Structures are given as C-alpha cells and as structure tokens.
C-alpha cells in the first residue's frame, strides 16, 4: 500500500532522541569508547626485545626497520606506514610489542611518527 510520509513519525521520534553522533574532535571526548583489544599505535618495550627480527620479517607494510645499536639488532617502527594489523605483536616471542588504544596518529614532524 502506498502511504507517503511513513517516515514522519520516525523523524519526530528522532527529534527527542539522543544525538547519534559524537562532537568528536573538541568536545565529548569521554564518549569515545574503545573496546579491549583495539589495535591502535604500536608500543614497544625495548628492554624485553631479544632481537629475533620476526616482527621485521612478518610486517606486510614494511613499516619496521632493523638497526644496530649497543645491544644488537633492534627494530624501529614507522607508524606512518603501519596498517595496524598487529601481526608483529602476535609473533613477538617476548611480548615486547603491544597495540595501544591511541588512534589519533597525526604529527607535524616525521620523528613523532617513529616508535623506537
């Protein structure tokens, strides 16, 4: 049956309902709920690393580079290349790599987008 304007009731209901969107960048930041296990910016615990280079070998985006330092071979993470698949965190034998809940990965300087 053709009834024009069936949506009017829904539209009126929506007038008195809570807003579906979040005023995100400036206000209501407390309403941004991220679940446990969210894959955000990589966090790296340098003291746990044993230099096995598995993370470097699995990374599909080539966001990890291996450099020599005083302790041996250690990875550097370029966040601007990261695709947040968390495969490096999964293969890490000592759990030195973890995914944080930081999702705002914007920086003015390139060095801020590198995790050492």
């Amino acid at each position, binding site marked *: 049956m053709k009834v024009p304007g069936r949506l009017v009731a829904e539209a009126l209901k929506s007038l008195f309902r809570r807003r579906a969107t979040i005023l995100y960048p400036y206000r209501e930041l407390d309403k941004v709920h991220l679940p446990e*296990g969210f894959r955000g910016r990589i966090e790296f615990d340098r003291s746990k690393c044993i230099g096995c280079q598995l993370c470097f*070998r699995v990374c599909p985006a080539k966001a990890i580079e291996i450099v020599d330092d005083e302790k041996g071979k250690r990875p550097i993470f370029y966040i601007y290349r990261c695709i947040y698949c968390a495969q490096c965190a999964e293969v890490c034998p000592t759990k030195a790599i973890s*995914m944080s809940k930081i999702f705002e990965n914007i920086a003015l300087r390139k060095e801020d987008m590198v995790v050492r």
Partner: protein
Amino acid sequence: MNFEVPIGPQHPIHVEPLMLRLKVEGELIVDADVDVSYIHRGIEKALELRPYIQGLYLVERICGICNAAQSLCYCLNVEQLLGKEAPPRARYLRIVVEELSRIHSHLLWLGHYLHTLGFETLFMYFWRDRERVMDMLELITGNRVTTAYNTIGGVRRDLPPGAEQKLRRTLDYIEERVRYYEKVIDSEPTILARTQRVGILKPGDAVRMGVTGPHLRASGIKHDVRLDDPYSGHDEIPFNVITWDTCDCYARVKVRLRETSECVNMIRYALDHMPSGDYRLKIPPFFKAPPGESLSRVEAPRGELVHYSISDGGDRPYRYRVRTPTLANLLSVVEMLRSRGDYEVYIADVPAILGGIDPCICCSARILITDEAKKRRMITTLDDIIRFSRGRRVERR
C-alpha cells in the same frame, strides 16, 4: 539523432572510476559500453612477491567492505594447499564475523542506493544503524573496517568476555529496524516509482552472463555458495536463500533487506551452538606450501568470490588469481541499460540500475576490455608501458 553520453570515469552518481558510454536517442538509451580498467592496482602480482602471511593483509585490501570475505577466501585457499582445516570453533567465529560484515555491507549499500535515488532521510537512518554493527566488529576483531580477523588455520582472537550479550542486543535492534525499513520501502511512492520495473534482468539472461550473489537471487534464481558449496561450517547452520522474482531494482532492494534479517538469524544460531575448544591451529608464521593448486569460493556480500592459487613448493604463491563478484555482475549492466521493445531505459534510470548491482570497481579492475564495435583492442605491451612511463602517449593496437 544519436548521441554518445559519457558517464565517468569521474561522476557524482558513482564515486569509483567506471566509464559508461551510453548511446542515446533523445532520452532513451539504446546501447551501452562499460570500461573498468582505470585503477589496475597490481595486487595479484604483489601477492606473488610476498610470503603467505604478508599476503593475508594485502588480500584484505582488495576491497575494504568485503575484507572479511576476502581474507576468509585466502585462508581457505592456503589451508587447502597445506591440507589443513580450521577447528570447529574457528569456523563458527568466522561465520559470525562474515555475517556481521554482510549486514554492514548490505546496510551500507541500502543507504547508499537510496542516496543515489535521492532519498536522503532513509540513507541517514541506515548508516546510523550500520554504526552499531561497526561497533560490534570493533569489539570482536579490534578494528571497525579492516578486521584482520581470519588467519591461516583459524581466527586470531577468541570472542571477548561480555561480547555475546552486546552482540545479541545489537542483533535484536538490527532485526527490528530492518523490519521497519522494509515497511517504509514497501509503502514509499518515491522509492517504488524509481525502482519498480526499472533495470529488468530476466533469469535466463542472468545465468547466461554469469551473474552472482544477491543480484542473481533478485532475478529469481536460487544460488548461494553457502548452500551449494558450504565452506566454513555453513552446512551445519540452517538458513533460507532469499529470492525475489520481479527481476527489477526493487527486487534487489528486497533481497538485500531480507538477507540482512537472515544474517541476524545465522549469527544467533552460531552463538547458540558455538563449539568449545581451540580457535586456531598452531601454524608457524613462515612455511612452505606443498606444490599444487587450489580453488576456494566464498559468498561475499556482493556475490561469489573466487580465489585460485598455484604453489610451486615455495614460501609464496607462484600465481594468485582473484575473481571478484563485481566483475561477474558488471556485464549485466549493459544488458539492463539497453532498451528493447516495450522495455525503455532513460538516462535518469542509470544511477538506479548501476547502483543496483552494488558495484565495487576497485576490486575488479584487473582486465583489459576488447571493444569489438570499434575494432579496437587495448593490449598494452612492455614497450608501451616503458613509453608510457616516459610520458609519451601509448598507441592502442
């Protein structure tokens, strides 16, 4: 007098680069030609150059919306090469995420389709409800869009504690909303006028052109890979294959709406009968697949997705081939756009017809089209590519 109206490769009715050349007589479309080869991305070649574990994340990026189906198809393919099968719990968890992403894809399509028809209000409501599904995907997999959930030999994480209740609440909400939207769509004269008896594809033509997925089911043919070739425990989960026999754009809307409620029931059944045990096999990140070839089929939200691979015994595929559903469905657009007899297609129907197949061009751009009418074949040789890269115009031969 005949004119040729180009639509695309950049056009407001469709955001992806697709070229439609319409031959018109006045407002009436008499012939059409379609070209998708604008964004060839070289993914198949790239897959040959990286180990299986890295290819998994590349495959997900063939299509952002059906990434769960793409990675599932890849995993099934590699598991078949290795001669292994995912544990029962992993199969059920795969179904939960696959069907959730199907709900998300169908709601996205319904919203977008109404947007192309000019019905903005319902578009907003659909996308608002879709957001609830995205939250569930984020809760289960860790990300809203690119889920990275399937892995070779199972899934990457178990259902988090408390997720089941939240998921059930969301499913109740989605089911109620979809029922309401079906009522709205059935009674709204503007939607009916733009979709009924528009873009008719007869069942015989649909089969002849190899159309797949909801588009084929909207032509009244009962075909679903989940039913015909169950791949991930689908034989254990009962579901109805939704068909509609009016063969027009309205049927495509109806099929996708009904399928959304069917997905809800499938997820509920999977949650009720979730087996316990391991959710993944222990497979090392780097392995060599035994020589051989394998083919896997998955019912992606847009239709049948086929992955084919050849292994030469190395740690990466020797050849990998992807056939996405849009490539199968695209040819039918030409058939639907052609006026014949008392079936008339006008330029204003183009968005409704093109949108009706749920096109995803960036998945499908991996062929070169031969244009028989103009006796022009677009075969690009290596010399052409070199010349092209130096900034000179390539001659078409």
